Structures are given as C-alpha cells and as structure tokens.
C-alpha cells in the first residue's frame, strides 16, 4: 500500500458470526471507534422460491410463499391469495376478509413483540428481552388456538380462509388483548423513561423525513421519521376499509422513535382486533375459485409488520403461475443503514441493524443486471457445479 493513501480500518462482521442470528456480511470502516462507512452484502440464504412457484400449481404456491418469511408468514400468503383472487375476478366473502385482517393484526403483535425483545437484547437490556418474549407467548398461544399452528398459520385458501372464529375463541382473544395492552403500556414506559436504555437509543441513527423518502424506507422505520405511509390506510385491502386503523407516526427519527412507533401500533392493532370481533360480518368462508386462473397480470400490496410487501403475479391461463415476484420490506430498509451508520460508534451498530427489524431470508432475491455488450449466459447444472468446485479449491 502506498504511504500517501489514507489508511482505512475495516471491521468485517459475518456471514457467520456469533452475534448474528441470520447470515449477512457487513463491513464497517472505522476511524478509531467512529464508523465512517458501511457496506452490506446479502444473498447467503437465497432459496429460489420465486422460481419454485413456476413449478407448482396456484394452491401449492400459497404454502410455498408462506415460507418466504417465518415471522410474517400470513401476510405473504394473504398478498398472494388477494392477487390471485383479483386475477380470477373473485372476491372473498366479507367474513373471510375480516378473519384475514384479524390474523394479520395478531401476527403484527407477535412480530413487533419479537422485535422489541431482539432490539432490547442488542442494546444489552436482557430483562426487557426475557419479559417481552414471555408475554409474546400469550399472542402465540392465541394464534395457535385460532389457526392451529404457532408459526405457519396456513389460514388462507384461494377464495377465503379455512378457519372460523367461534364466540369462545373471540372471548379468549379479547382477554389476551387486555393482558397484552397492560404489559405494552409498561414496556412503552420502560423504553421512554429508563435512563440507561435511553442512553443507547436516544439520538442514535437519526433519519430525517427527507432521508427516509430518499432512501425508500418503508413501514415503522419510515413512520418513525414522520412519513405517513401505510398500505392499510392508503390502499385498503381485505377488510381494512370496514375496520380501519389509524396511522402512527413519530418525528424523532431515532431508535427511541422506532420503539415508540412500533409499540403504539400494537395498541392500534388491539383496538382493531376488538372492533373486528364485536362486528364480525356473517357470511360463508370461501368463494369458489377456478383451478385455472385466466391469463393476465396483477400486483398486490399489503402492509407487513415491517412495511410494504409487494407481489407481482402473472398468469398464462394455466394451472400454475408464469411469474411471481415479491418485494419484501426488509430489503427496502437496508439502504438506510449505510447512510445512517456514518458518524456513530461501532458499538451502536448492532442496535442500528436491529432497528429496522431486518429479516434476512426475506431479502434474498436474484436480480439480473443486463449490461450493454454482455451476452446472457446460460449455465447447466454440471457447469455450475464445476465452477463452484473450482471457486472454492
């Protein structure tokens, strides 16, 4: 290295690292303890799900796409089924739509409480982590007794839902919401008043409204910077038109604001869950959807716990899709990190990363960049294998 070049010290983290729960590679260039640049590399858990959908029929794909994400499995299946129903020209009955919204809001509670625990853990506040996860079990049990599973609820079918809400179940959910609301009030108090914890979050990673718009942030990450954008309100789907939610924003833009926005969203979720249970429309649960979906293309947008989830679905008129593309919210939020990280201490990085509620396996898509003068290459499995062996030799 030439002596004149400014010396850079790079701290690499991952893809395998004891502090990371999922594989991702981060490079932070530091000057002493202060981060001067950050870069992110993803793609270690690419599973080829989008391609996989082209080999399965419309019904099988519900369950494949549900597995894009383990935390927000219901919204993926809901976005896909809403899109396919739109293509088929079928609308699910009102009760089915209300149940979809109910499960989606319960899922939001479990997802945000999971995040609350993880973010507190990254900040070294393990007491909050343990207690918020203990209380999260309440909503997990509610989801299990309502849908039959803790993680992959498999509630959606084409044209409706599989499960109904009985009056007894509705009472259990109401009681669960009462308990959760009380606990969440406590946690809101903790994250906004505990001095030790505020020292880790207040003023860390501030993102202005302009930055959030420019970097394409979505979901609670954007709303914590004052962006009033929420698909549930902007483009209501399922039964969000009948049972609306109000958007929760904060102007802080820092980590404290993200805690506040996410917890306040849960009060809103609890409120709308009660509203749905009290005014559940009466109708059948499933509308008939043909096995072959008419040719056409459509988009479908829903608000996942992490932000806007986007699906593009193309049908050629057969019993399986020609193309399914999904854009998950985590991917949109990554770009905020590399900008916001600059100027902070290296020790703040885990909290900053956790602050956008990243979901690694959701991110991993393959993109093809077409450049002029470069021919497309088609490799066989054998060639790829040989290339892989050579690469790692």
């Amino acid at each position, binding site marked *: 290295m030439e002596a004149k070049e400014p010396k850079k010290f790079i701290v690499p983290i991952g893809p395998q690292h004891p502090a990371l729960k999922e594989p991702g590679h981060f490079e932070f260039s530091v000057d002493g303890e202060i981060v001067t640049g950050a870069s992110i590399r993803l793609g270690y858990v690419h599973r080829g799900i989008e391609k996989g959908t082209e080999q399965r*029929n419309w019904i099988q794909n519900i369950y494949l796409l549900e597995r894009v994400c383990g935390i927000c499995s219901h919204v993926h299946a809901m976005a896909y089924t809403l899109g396919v129903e739109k293509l088929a020209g079928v609308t699910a009955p009102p009760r089915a739509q209300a149940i979809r919204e109910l499960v989606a809001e319960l899922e939001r509670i479990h997802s945000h409480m999971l995040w609350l625990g993880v973010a507190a853990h990254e900040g070294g506040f393990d*007491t909050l982590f343990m207690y918020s996860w203990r209380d999260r079990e309440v909503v997990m049990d509610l989801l299990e007794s309502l849908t039959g*599973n803790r993680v*992959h609820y498999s509630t959606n079918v084409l044209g409706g839902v599989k499960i109904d809400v009985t009056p007894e179940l509705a009472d259990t959910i109401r009681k669960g919401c009462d308990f959760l609301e009380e606990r969440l009030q406590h946690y809101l*108090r903790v994250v906004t008043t*505990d001095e030790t914890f505020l020292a880790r979050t207040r003023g860390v990673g501030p993102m202005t409204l302009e930055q959030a718009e420019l970097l394409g942030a979505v979901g609670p990450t954007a709303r914590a910077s004052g962006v009033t954008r929420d698909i549930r309100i902007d483009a209501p789907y399922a039964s969000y038109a009948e049972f609306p939610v109000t958007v929760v924003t904060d102007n802080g833009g820092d980590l404290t604001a993200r805690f506040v926005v996410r917890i306040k969203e849960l009060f809103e979720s609890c409120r709308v869950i009660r509203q749905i249970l009290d005014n559940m429309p009466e109708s059948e649960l499933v509308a008939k959807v043909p096995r072959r979906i008419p040719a056409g293309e459509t988009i479908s947008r829903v608000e996942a716990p992490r932000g806007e989830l986007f699906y593009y679905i193309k049908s050629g008129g057969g019993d399986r899709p020609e193309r399914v593309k999904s854009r998950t919210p985590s991917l949109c939020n990554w770009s905020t990190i590399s900008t916001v990280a600059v100027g902070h201490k290296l020790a703040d990085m885990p909290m900053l990363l956790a602050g956008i509620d990243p979901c690694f396996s959701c991110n991993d898509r393959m993109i093809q960049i077409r450049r002029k003068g470069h021919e497309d290459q088609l490799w066989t499995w054998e060639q790829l294998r040989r290339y892989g062996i050579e690469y790692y030799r």
Partner: protein
Amino acid sequence: MTIGSMIGDIVESLFKKPVTQQYPFERKEAPERFRGRVHYEPGGCTGCQLCVKDCPAYALELITIDKAAKRFVMRYHMDRCVYCGQCVISCRFSSLRMAHDEWELAATSRSPFVIDYGLPEDLATLHGTEAEPEPDACRNV
C-alpha cells in the same frame, strides 16, 4: 427519568412458581385446531386425486387397487408433510382429517414415516404384490 425500571418485574417473578413444564412427564394438551398427523378413511374416496395434486410437499400418494370398485390405498409420507391442512380442505368427500393429539411423531429412521391407509384386504393386496417401500423412495419426488 428512572433507572432500573424493570426491577419491579424481577422482584414480582421471585415469588412466582416456575412456568417450565417437566415435558415428557407432563404434557400440555394441544389446542383443538392443532394440525397433527393426517388420517384417511377409504369410505367416501372417489380417487379424484385433488389432495395429491394440491399437496405442497408431495406427501400423499393414492395407489389404485381397483378403479371400478373405487378401492384405493393412501400412502402418506409423514416426513415430507408440512401439516398445512390443504388436503383436508381439498377433499370434497371428507375422507381426510388431521388429528390434533398426534404430534409426537419423531422417529430414528425414515421407514416409520411411510404410512399406508386403506381397507385391510386392499393393504394385503398391495403388500402382497409390492415390496415394502425403500426409505430412499421418498427422494423420488
């Protein structure tokens, strides 16, 4: 501004019983809707194969013994099953159901996971003419 705002929770927990269950000795009952092992009743089955076509994990095989007499054997690969419940929804004749109390399904080899459901005489016909499925047969999806 406070310091140690969660000390109250910790002190409260000191006086509570542990919530951990001694699992193999005490079992928490699964909820009524829990999706466990799939069961097949050959009675109403017409052999329409919708369950086989819609299974996202390719866990079901319907073996025809006698098509005219509507006699079928359902081969269920429990290790491939993702317990989504689509087969139960797809079946128009209520031949399939999921047991909520059968969830301890682990085994040390693959062979116990291949389960044949059907009338005893059909199973005898099948097993008389066909050898037991190899554990590796599960790979040929």
